[in-house]
């Protein structure tokens, strides 16, 4: 029995959308054009028509499943949002160079000489002025109070080189102006602006005892939106870093030259560096947390689903019991078992779809674009928005169908097996 139920459920959950659509169409055709299908449909209609009489218990199925789907979709949307933010950061044709073994920019130190050697690699694209498009960058962390609760949070301050804008053409100013190189001026990423005290256009910020003015706000559409940018040289002097930086980001001639530059720089005896594409660097950062959230979401979803299945079973057993006489009458006048089974199953799955849509809809209404933050690899805040994608809504709906299927199957079989004579005597 376990396998008989488990297999269809598993299939239901992993099923791609087009198979399900095909199944629904086939079912509709069967209901409309075959004799037994037509019988099933008329029995189902009677069942659905009696739902208002059992509104309380039917709503248990709907709300129970809405709860499962809502929580599942919301948790997975958190993971999807975080992953999307880091996935969109970086490209295949820009590379980031850090000290060998450093893993993250915060751990890395790249001295001036190394930065010069690195940017002279022949695979680096040159701009119209004939200079290599390379930006030596210094990442430091500032502890700033959040606007929301006043608690200190770590904000990533990125000192960038003059070519940073050419390395990342996706960065657009949306308010104020760019900082002036050489001055203590900062610009805030769209997500950081307004979230931390002193991080908004026009205000001043104290970093390591020195006053900086915030002169602009930028939108990069990716995880750089959680950062605050300034001139690398000025940031370095404030943080007493001399001429060293933490990484060098460079634009390549094309994505295909990555292997060549990686081989050239990692074997150069003068320097000891790691080279990766920025896409790879940021993608890797999302792996652990995304995985953890997935495991959490699915574990919570499964346990809640088990609870909802029993709720649905209760409701449908009660529904079958309440309609025992009517079902027995149908059987007595010649209806077979199949229409009875189909009608109970269809009714449950209809309630389940209703619940799934409600839960997914609520998750979407409340959590789509809900912003949250976590501590990223650089020990600083990465701000991201929950992303309730169509795929997530779809998988929520499939979970609902699976729960409805199990919750309806056993009561349906009981209804079909009920001896007619016993059923007719039921009150």
């Amino acid at each position, binding site marked *: 029995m376990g396998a008989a139920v488990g297999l269809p459920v598993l299939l239901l959950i992993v099923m791609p959308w087009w198979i399900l659509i095909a199944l629904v169409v086939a079912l509709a055709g069967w209901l409309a054009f075959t004799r037994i299908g037509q019988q099933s449909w008329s029995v189902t209609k009677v069942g659905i028509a009696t739902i208002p009489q059992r509104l*309380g*218990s039917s*709503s*248990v199925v709907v*709300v*129970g499943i*809405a*709860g499962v789907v*809502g*929580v599942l979709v*919301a*948790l997975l949307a958190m993971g999807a949002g975080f992953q999307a933010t880091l996935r969109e950061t970086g490209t295949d044709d820009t590379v980031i160079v850090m*000290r*060998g*073994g*450093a*893993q*993250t920019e*915060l*751990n890395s*130190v790249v001295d001036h000489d190394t930065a010069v050697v690195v940017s002279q690699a022949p695979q680096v694209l040159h701009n119209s002025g004939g200079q290599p498009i390379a930006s030596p960058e210094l990442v*430091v*962390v*500032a*502890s700033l109070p959040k606007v929301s609760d006043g*608690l*200190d*949070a*770590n904000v990533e301050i990125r000192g960038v080189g003059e070519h940073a804008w050419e390395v990342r053409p996706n960065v657009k100013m949306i308010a104020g102006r760019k900082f002036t190189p050489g001055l203590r001026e900062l610009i805030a990423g769209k997500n950081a602006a307004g979230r931390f005290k002193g991080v908004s256009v026009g205000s001043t910020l104290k*970093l*390591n*005892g020195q006053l900086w003015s915030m002169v602009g706000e930028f939108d990069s559409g990716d995880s750089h939106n959680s950062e605050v940018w300034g001139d690398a040289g000025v940031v370095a002097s404030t*943080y*007493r870093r001399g001429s060293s930086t933490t990484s060098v980001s460079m634009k390549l001639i094309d994505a295909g030259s990555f292997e060549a530059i990686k081989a050239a720089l990692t074997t150069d005896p003068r320097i*000891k560096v790691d080279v990766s594409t920025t896409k790879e660097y940021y993608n890797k950062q999302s792996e*652990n947390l995304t995985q953890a959230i997935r495991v959490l979401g699915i*574990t*919570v979803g499964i*346990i*809640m689903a*088990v*609870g*909802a299945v*029993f*709720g649905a*079973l*209760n*409701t449908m*057993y*009660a529904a079958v019991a309440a309609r025992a006489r009517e079902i027995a009458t149908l059987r007595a006048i010649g209806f077979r078992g199949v229409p009875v089974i189909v009608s109970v199953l269809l009714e449950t799955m209809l309630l389940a779809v209703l619940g799934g849509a409600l839960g997914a809809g609520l998750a979407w209404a409340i959590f789509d674009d809900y912003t*949250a*933050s*976590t*501590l990223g690899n650089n*020990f600083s*805040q990465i701000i991201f928005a929950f992303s309730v994608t169509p795929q997530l809504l779809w998988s929520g709906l499939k979970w609902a169908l699976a729960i409805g299927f199990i919750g309806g199957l056993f009561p349906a079989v009981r209804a079909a097996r009920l001896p007619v004579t016993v059923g007719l005597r039921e009150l």
Partner: protein
Amino acid sequence: MKYFHLVWAALFRRKTRTLFTLLSVLAAFLLFGLLDSVRTAFANAGGSVAGVDRLVTFSKVSFTMALPKSLLPRIQAVPGVAEVAYANWFGGIYQDPKNFFPNEAVSENFLDLYPEWVLPAEQREAFRHTRSGAVIGASLAKRFNWKIGDKIPLQATIFPQKNGSNTWTFDLVGIFHARDPKLEGQENVLFFNWDHFNEATQFGGGNTVGWYAIKLADVKRGDQVAQAIDALSADSDHESKTQTEQSFTTALISQFADIGLIVGAIMGAVFFTLVLLTGNTMAQAVRERIPELAVLKTIGFSSQSVLTLVLAEAVLLLVLGGAIGMALAGVVVDIVRARIGNTVPLAPLDVSIWLLGLALMVAIGLVVGVLPAVRGMRLRIVDALSGR
């Protein structure tokens, strides 16, 4: 209590329905047990148990910046300071970044400030005398199956050695365990000698340390001492920020995620559906039994007693399912902790989690029982017996 068998019989009048409802309750409280175990694990990491008599001094700019070592004697001289230790975050990785565990270079007296770690005296002595020695928590030892005498190679991410090598090899000389089982979650750590670090590192040692840990002579004077310490470096180019270890960790965890909010939101959804589900069951149960309740009243039960009987039935339903669910959660937590150690933040289900769970069971039982119970209480015998 003398009516217990009556309540019990009423509860199992419809076996299937009660069983299914119990299983739903069980699932809800299984989830509650697991999630509250996670929440507690994070809360304990905030140092609710230990660390009340300690302050930590980090750079005011951010905890990723170093402080000058010259502060050490000056902090020691601050009145109210019993002892000062210092440490550096090393950030080494073992084989793969996924194997992450904290590893820190600590001053010789560091472990004296942390009496919650129990390290046998001879191992402590060995740690003192072995320059490349390291001590680790029991959970960490279990995770990688390390034994005393093993060599542990760590890849430096921040601090390469002077000779340019990124590999630091430590000799495992001691394994400590937490005095309080609640702290087992923090056993996942490796300490090694700061002097060795200072000697071998290419940079980052010398005149700077990552942070200071301060043991207070008098816990009540924590605020004053913290202010006095921060005054030492005020208006210099390396200002410090001193706070209790507890508030430091709490702030760090809250930066990672608002665990309480996530757990609270999930449990809110779970319990909302649970109330509806069990409420429906109780309403059905009472509806079917109206004539029976009328008989009870006829033979002399007061309206009050009928109310109590129905409420007791609802609470019993919740407590029965909930207790089994939480017991199951306890077993699951124990198995997971035994299997994969402390990489998953799970705290054992202790008395406080159980008490919270029981309070929720009783509260939900009362909420779902109250409407049916009032209905039972108010019924008029004549109407009920005649089926009106």
